[in-house]
């Protein structure tokens, strides 16, 4: 099969320039990596705008962008719910309410918080599942990247996999989390500059929003109007969207996933840590510009998505086909670089999260406790090598068994769904006990798995797979919430003195050290207001 896109020397120069800068940034950070905290948490020294943009980019992986363009072609403007409902409230909540406990308690990882708040078993459950998931996900996205570049550009799989792995290895090995974060910030600019040309040309060709309104189905043009029942392109009603996506899934991901929280922990002080997700929320609200508009444009300009071809259309190819449709060589190289950058920084993010959890929560807890810091720094560096080797191995296994990818993602969703209930009760209810936390989390995970089994057996039916997914999260969360409270009522309470700094109400409020215009609460409120206004505009 011929590749979809042909690159020329200018395109390759653009790609090469990016790789050089990335490796250079990693190398110039090498001299700062003196302690474990330098390597794993950037020495807690970065300003809020850097960690904020990295917080956003860590999530803005290439698969996410391609998938969201596909969703937009499928579901229309309703895709904005993944941003304005499914991200902004959780990000603001993390910054205003949860960050004082994460950053203020000086924990280095999310599982470490669970250890302090609940017990070793709860930490172990979370740390081990997270470490396995993260390193396997990194392998899955490595494979997905290689496959995309093979179809798109004709690059051979093995070379793509090994090349990306070596580049990521170099810069993470040298610069740790700082490398990862700085490259995410560069990626942030590249992805906007790389994809905006498609947005402009697309809008010009279809005649702007008036063109969408004239030529697209009415149901694709509204974010909220058709959510009253599940008879809409998403196949989910408002309750599923608000509770499942907006509350359980979104809060579960944004407030407890170490991949993103780690960026905030790298901030130089509590105010910067709290501002991190809030700064990120503003560009996050604008991401629909580069995903939703291209998705809608694809429906109108690409023959592959004409109404006759639609039933068999491969939505995931929408972005790539648009690149081919609009971009001349030169800008094409820039767009490919943007995708490559988000793949690599996504992998680097997974690898840094993995080596931190492994070193602190698994190796430093169960294997070799109480060693000097220099020992853990070394372990962290070599864990990077091992983590990347496992990713490469996973990429090869997935290559032979593509179905494995879906199963893995499925199992990961079981682990993620209930987590937010454990954190919410842990941070805001002092009565939650150590074993309450553990059993709540475990039952929540099993509920998600059980719900999935019932759905697949046909005993539960939903309007769409997405609805099943949202409701599964709601059930898992509720089970965790109820069981944590139930078990807590019958098990030994923690001494409130031990919970100072970890639980709301037992922790002195942070003094308003920043001026009003630098306060998280002010900006967080503003972010929520803007998100509401955007929803009303696109109602």
């Amino acid at each position, binding site marked *: 099969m011929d590749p979809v896109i042909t690159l020329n020397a*200018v395109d390759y*120069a*653009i790609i090469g*320039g*990016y790789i050089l*800068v990335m490796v*250079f*940034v990693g190398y*110039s*950070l090498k001299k*700062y990596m003196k302690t*474990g*905290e*330098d390597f794993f948490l*950037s*020495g*807690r*020294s*970065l300003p809020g705008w*850097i960690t904020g943009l990295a917080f956003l980019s860590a999530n803005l992986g290439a698969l996410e962008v391609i998938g969201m363009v596909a969703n937009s072609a499928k579901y229309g403007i309703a895709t904005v719910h993944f941003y304005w409902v499914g991200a902004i409230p959780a990000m603001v909540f993390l910054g205003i309410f949860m960050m004082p406990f994460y950053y203020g308690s*000086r924990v*280095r990882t999310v599982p470490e918080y669970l250890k302090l708040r609940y017990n070793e078993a709860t930490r172990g459950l979370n740390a081990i599942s997270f470490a396995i998931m993260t390193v396997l996900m990194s392998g899955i996205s490595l494979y997905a990247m290689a496959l995309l570049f093979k179809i798109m550009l004709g690059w051979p799989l093995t070379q793509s996999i090994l090349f990306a792995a070596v580049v990521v290895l170099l810069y993470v090995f040298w610069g740790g989390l*700082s490398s990862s974060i*700085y490259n995410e*910030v*560069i990626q942030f*600019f590249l992805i906007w*500059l790389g994809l905006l*040309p498609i947005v402009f*040309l697309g809008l*010009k*060709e279809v005649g702007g929003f008036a063109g969408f309104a004239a030529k697209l189905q009415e149901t694709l043009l509204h974010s909220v109007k058709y959510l009253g029942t599940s008879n809409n392109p998403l196949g989910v009603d408002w309750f599923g969207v608000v509770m499942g996506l907006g509350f359980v899934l979104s809060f579960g991901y944004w407030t407890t996933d170490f991949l993103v929280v780690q960026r905030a922990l790298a901030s*130089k002080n509590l105010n910067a840590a709290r501002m991190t997700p809030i700064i990120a929320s503003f560009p996050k609200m604008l991401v629909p510009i580069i995903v939703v508009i291209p998705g809608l444009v694809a429906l109108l300009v690409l023959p592959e998505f004409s109404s006759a071809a639609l039933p068999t259309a491969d939505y995931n190819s929408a972005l790539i086909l648009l690149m081919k*449709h*609009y*971009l*001349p*060589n*030169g*800008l094409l190289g*820039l767009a490919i670089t943007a995708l490559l950058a988000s793949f690599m920084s996504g992998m680097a993010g997974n690898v840094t999260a993995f080596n931190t959890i492994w070193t*602190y929560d698994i190796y*430093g807890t169960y294997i070799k*406790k*109480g*060693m*000097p*810091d*220099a020992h*853990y720094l070394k372990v962290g560096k070599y864990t990077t090598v091992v983590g990347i080797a496992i990713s490469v191995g996973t990429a090869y296994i997935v290559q032979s068994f593509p179905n494995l990818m879906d199963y893995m993602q499925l199992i990961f969703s079981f682990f993620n769904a209930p987590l937010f209930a454990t954190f919410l009760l842990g941070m805001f209810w002092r009565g939650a006990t150590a074993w309450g936390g553990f059993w709540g989390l475990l039952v929540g995970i099993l509920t998600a798995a059980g719900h999935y089994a019932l759905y697949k057996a046909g005993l539960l039916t939903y309007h769409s797979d997405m609805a099943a997914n949202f409701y599964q999260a709601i059930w898992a969360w509720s089970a965790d919430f109820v069981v944590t409270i139930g078990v807590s009522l019958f098990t030994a309470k923690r001494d409130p003195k031990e919970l100072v700094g970890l639980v709301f109400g037992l922790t002195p409020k942070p003094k308003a050290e920043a001026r009003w215009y630098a306060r998280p609460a002010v900006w967080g409120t503003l972010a929520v207001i803007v998100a509401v206004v955007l929803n009303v505009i696109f109602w």
Partner: protein
Amino acid sequence: MNDTIETQGQGAGMKQGHVLDLKLPIGWLLSAYGVLLTVYGLLTKKEVYAISLGINLNLAWGILMIVIGGGFLLTAFLKRKKA
């Protein structure tokens, strides 16, 4: 220096920032891209831009990127001069 993994007290004075003025690499990268795209845009024939609706977008985007990249470099240099 506290060396154990369990406790990590860190005084404010010990904090050494990972100082890398990110404006420099971003500025250099974007301006280099800008120059490359502008030059390439000037050298390419009109027919190349049939797909981009007849607009020489390499040229336009190249100039935009020179402006953005230059902006980053300028702020970085001004800051350095001040310090």
